[in-house]
C-alpha cells in the first residue's frame, strides 16, 4: 500500500468517516474512495455504494474483468448516554464489554462524579455544550436517560439532526406523549420523532436499572446489526 493512501485512510478513520480501499489484486495497485466522494463516473459506483451501506469488505469483479478487493472501513459504533444515572452505571461497563466506546453526559455534577463512573468517559456539561465536541454521527447511538426534559430534549434533537443510528429516551408512554409535544414545538417533524425508541429498550420486562441497561444495549445492537441500510439513508439525508 502506498504510504500516502495509508495516511489518507487513517485521517478518514480518525475523523469517523467511512472509506474504501480498492485494490487490484493482480497488480496490487490501489486507490482510496471516501464516503463523501462523488461516485458518478466511477466504474464501481454501484458496488461501492452497496459496500458503504453494508460495511462489508470483499472481492468483486470490475467491469473490465479485473479482480478487485474492497476493504471497507466504517467507523466503530459508539454510545452516548445522556444522564449519569443508575442505568448508565450499569450500561457503561456492559457496553464497553460489547465493544462500544461510551460517553456519558450530565450537567448535574452531583450525578456526574468520577467515583460513580470510574474509568468511564464522563462529561459534566449540558448536552448542547458537550455534543458539538463529541460529534454525533450516523455511527453513534444516543440514549437519553435523565427523565429531565431540560437535559434530554436538546440531546434528542441533536441526535435526530445528526442521523444517529439509534435514538432512545427513557420514560413511559405518557411521558413520551408530552415529549412528543415539546419536540414538535421545537419544529421537529413527526416522522423524525417516530425514530425515537420510547419507552426505551427491548420489551423484555426489565425492572431494575441494570436490567433496563441490558434492554437498552440489546436494542442498540439490534438497531446496529439489523438495519444497516438505515445508516446510509440517514447519512445521505
Amino acid at each position, binding site marked *: *500500500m502506498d504510504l500516502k493512501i495509508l495516511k489518507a*485512510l487513517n485521517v478518514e*478513520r480518525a475523523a469517523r468517516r467511512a472509506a474504501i480501499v480498492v485494490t487490484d489484486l493482480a497488480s496490487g495497485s490501489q486507490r482510496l474512495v471516501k464516503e463523501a466522494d462523488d461516485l458518478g463516473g466511477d466504474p464501481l459506483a454501484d458496488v461501492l455504494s452497496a459496500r458503504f451501506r453494508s460495511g462489508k469488505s470483499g472481492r468483486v469483479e470490475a467491469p473490465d474483468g479485473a479482480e478487485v478487493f474492497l476493504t471497507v472501513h466504517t467507523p466503530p459504533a459508539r454510545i452516548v448516554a445522556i444522564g449519569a444515572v443508575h442505568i448508565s452505571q450499569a450500561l457503561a461497563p456492559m457496553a464497553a464489554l460489547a465493544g462500544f466506546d461510551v460517553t456519558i453526559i450530565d450537567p448535574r455534577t452531583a450525578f456526574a462524579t468520577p467515583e460513580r463512573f470510574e474509568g468511564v468517559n464522563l462529561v459534566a456539561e449540558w448536552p448542547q455544550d458537550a455534543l458539538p465536541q463529541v460529534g454525533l454521527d450516523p455511527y453513534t447511538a444516543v440514549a437519553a436517560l435523565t427523565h429531565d426534559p431540560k437535559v434530554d430534549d436538546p440531546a434528542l434533537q441533536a441526535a435526530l439532526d445528526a442521523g444517529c443510528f439509534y435514538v432512545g429516551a427513557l420514560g413511559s408512554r405518557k411521558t413520551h406523549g408530552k415529549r412528543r409535544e415539546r419536540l414538535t414545538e421545537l419544529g421537529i417533524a413527526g416522522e423524525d420523532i417516530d425514530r425515537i425508541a420510547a419507552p426505551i429498550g427491548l420489551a423484555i420486562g426489565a425492572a431494575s436499572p441494570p436490567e433496563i441497561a441490558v434492554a437498552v444495549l440489546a436494542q442498540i445492537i439490534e438497531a446496529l446489526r439489523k438495519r444497516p441500510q438505515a445508516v446510509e439513508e440517514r447519512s445521505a439525508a
Partner: protein
Amino acid sequence: MDDPLTIAEAWSSEGRKVALATVVDTWGSAPRPVGSHLVIDEEGRFEGSVSGGCVEGAVVAEAVDVIETGKPQMLEFGVADETAWEVGLSCGGTIRVFVEPVR
C-alpha cells in the same frame, strides 16, 4: 494502540520496512472476517491478526519476503493444504491472504 493500520503508518514513519496482510476470502469456518489486517515489519515483528493465531507464523515469513522483493503475494491456507495443516488452520476453513508492501 492495537489498530494495525495506525501501527503500519507509525512503523513506516519510523523508517521501518512494513508489509500489510489482508484477509480477502474465507470459505467455511474462518476465525477472522474478510478485511482483517496484520501488519509486519522486516524483522518479523507483527500486530493484528488474520486468523486465530493459526497461520500468522507463515504469513509473517512470507511478508518478510514481500518487504524484500516489493512484490505483493496472494497466500492461501486451508485444511486441504498440507503446509497450512502443518501451521495449523484446524478450524476447517480456507482463507486467502493478500500481502503487500507499504512504501
